């Protein structure tokens, strides 16, 4: 593992999240330091629940979550939670927007919601919109944009405050291949100074953009390691994707099966 507790932006101890009686996350321990981290796992594994807790949107049922050294959750005070939120960027899985707003208005609105410094907002909005490749559509209404462009507006609002912790839940959904390539370059750039956590189904996004991978299965950590280590689990790269996928997809499958086998043996 590349991250250490001393440098961690995110520290999670015994994190438990329940939906009714079902444990969606079960006593999870995690640390995230600056860099780009991929969060992989099958549907319903608990990725979105983890992202929502880290985004301070949902309160954990148990355990401890520290962001930037401050505990968040039900016990945290308003001021410390607000201070943490000012340093967050969050793209929800279902990104909602106001269709009548222009891109500039919407991103500026989110900048206001994030309590950004007034003087910095106009330039920050233009920079964020430019970084997602929508500079030429900055004054277009969001409802006139394609699905991929709307997703990029979502990324722009997430990065407008230059967050120290960027949480992206399925950020590449709806992006075409060219846009995905550009997006990966963007999060690599962001990850050089910030902690970026990307929850995705698309392992090739992880392979291309992430330094670390966390694999979640049924509310537990199934695997943690670098992208290279996960790729190595998939065997040698033959240069072409076989019927079992490319090396990282095979590594993902191997790690998942190993975890399931270990759980079955307990």
């Amino acid at each position, binding site marked *: 593992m590349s991250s250490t507790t001393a440098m961690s932006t995110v520290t999670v101890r015994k994190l438990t999240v329940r939906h009714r009686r079902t444990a969606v996350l079960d006593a999870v321990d995690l640390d995230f330091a600056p860099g780009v981290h991929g969060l992989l796992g099958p549907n319903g594994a608990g990725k979105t629940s983890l992202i929502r807790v880290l985004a301070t949107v949902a309160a954990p049922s148990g355990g401890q979550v520290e962001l930037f050294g401050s505990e968040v959750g039900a016990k945290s005070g308003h001021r410390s939670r607000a201070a943490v*939120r*000012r340093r967050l960027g969050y793209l929800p899985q279902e990104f909602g927007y106001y269709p009548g707003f222009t891109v500039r*208005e919407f991103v500026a609105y989110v900048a*206001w919601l994030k309590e*950004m410094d007034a003087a910095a907002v106009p330039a920050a909005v233009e920079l964020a919109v430019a970084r997602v490749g929508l500079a030429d559509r900055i004054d277009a209404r969001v409802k006139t944009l394609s699905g991929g462009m709307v997703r990029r507006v979502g990324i722009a609002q997430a990065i407008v405050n230059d967050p120290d912790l960027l949480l992206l839940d399925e950020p590449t959904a709806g992006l075409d291949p060219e846009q995905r390539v550009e997006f990966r370059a963007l999060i690599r750039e962001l990850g050089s100074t910030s902690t970026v956590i990307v929850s995705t189904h698309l392992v090739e996004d992880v392979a291309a953009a992430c330094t670390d991978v966390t694999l979640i299965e049924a509310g537990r950590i199934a695997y943690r390691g670098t992208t290279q280590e996960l790729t190595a689990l998939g065997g040698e790269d033959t240069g072409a994707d076989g019927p079992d996928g490319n090396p990282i997809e095979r590594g993902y499958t191997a790690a998942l099966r190993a975890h399931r086998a270990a759980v079955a043996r307990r």
Partner: protein
Amino acid sequence: MTNPAYTALRAELRRGLAPWTGPAVALTLLVTLWGKAPQWQGSWGETQSQLHSAAGLLACPLVAAAACWQGGREHRRRTAELLLSVPRSRLAQATTAATPIALWAAAGYLLALGVAFAATAPYTGAGSPSVSIVATDLGFLLSVGFVGFVVGRLVRWRLIAPVLAVCAYVLLGFPGYLNSEARFLSPAQAVALEVSVPVWWFAPVLVAWTGGIAVSVLLAYAARRRYLAVVPLVLAIAAGTLVVHTGADLFRDDPAMARRVCSEAGPGTPQICVNASDAPVLPQMSQALAGMFSRLEGVPGAPTRYVDTQSGPKDGEAGLAYVMRGWGITRNRLTDPRGYASDTALTLVNRDCQAGPPGKDRKKEAERVARTTDAVISWLTGEDSKRYADSRYLAHLKTMPDADRKVWLGRFLATPQRCTPAEVPVL
């Protein structure tokens, strides 16, 4: 440098449902007023009464529905998740999202008010618009905006906006059917502003009543320290208690309506005195009554001064026919000058006597008096007469020598104050 709060508010003001609310409110009020224009155009008070009722009963449910729809936006647009992750307080978020609806509603009201006042101004003779009523209406529209918004935030049902509008209509209209002083708590309560004005503290107390409820609801929903909602609630209850306790005394007679304006008296021309608001109609009234006055010239005891009935004619004075602005007078014109003359003649000779015990002779005598009275009215109003008179009585009056008729009329005019039919001279 632009404050991001203003940027956010400006975006909310320009986008979504908010900008539609203003024109919708203005259109609703103006369409409602349009159909009754002749009734209100001659009086500031009546204009504001109509606008006040329309704002309370129609604009407020509309604003409540619009604000409710705006409040439900985060559910419909799935932005609630994003809003939960930001540091900006829920109170600031809610206020910024709800304010544009309230402001546009206020703008729509002010636009309608401006148009209505512009239409009224050329036809008013006295009085002035009531700032208190404007402030009260605006306060109520703003308050409804915030309450509707909170309902929309809390109730995740797509039909809640129209349902809220219907509920608001019923809730605001129902107190009007009560005799209790509690009806004054409804901002849609009809008020007779054409003859009365609100007391000086009317606006602050009514705004405290409606605004207190709105702020209380908003704080209970969005404030971090929700118990603070008790403060505006207590204020609202105190204001509401004062309103109920005061009741109809919230309004007093309009001093401007007590002022009288009189025409110039001349030889053979009695003076006419009317309420100041009817001053522009004075020449038309004089013209309508000119025929009657010429017929009464030289009649012993004929009144030298005619006053509007609200003033209460004194000795030597006669009452003018009662004409209501908006009905008998529209846009500073007498709608029926012939009827006005006829009714004034009736007022002059009218007997307000209790009927005595029945009896054949008494009945016959009463009939004679009635026929005589009708003949006098018909003769006084001449060709303008709208009354049916017994032709024999009328012919007799017409064929009398002029001097005899004047003497006879003098005797006749001396009798209306007395209720003994036998004293009425025979025609």
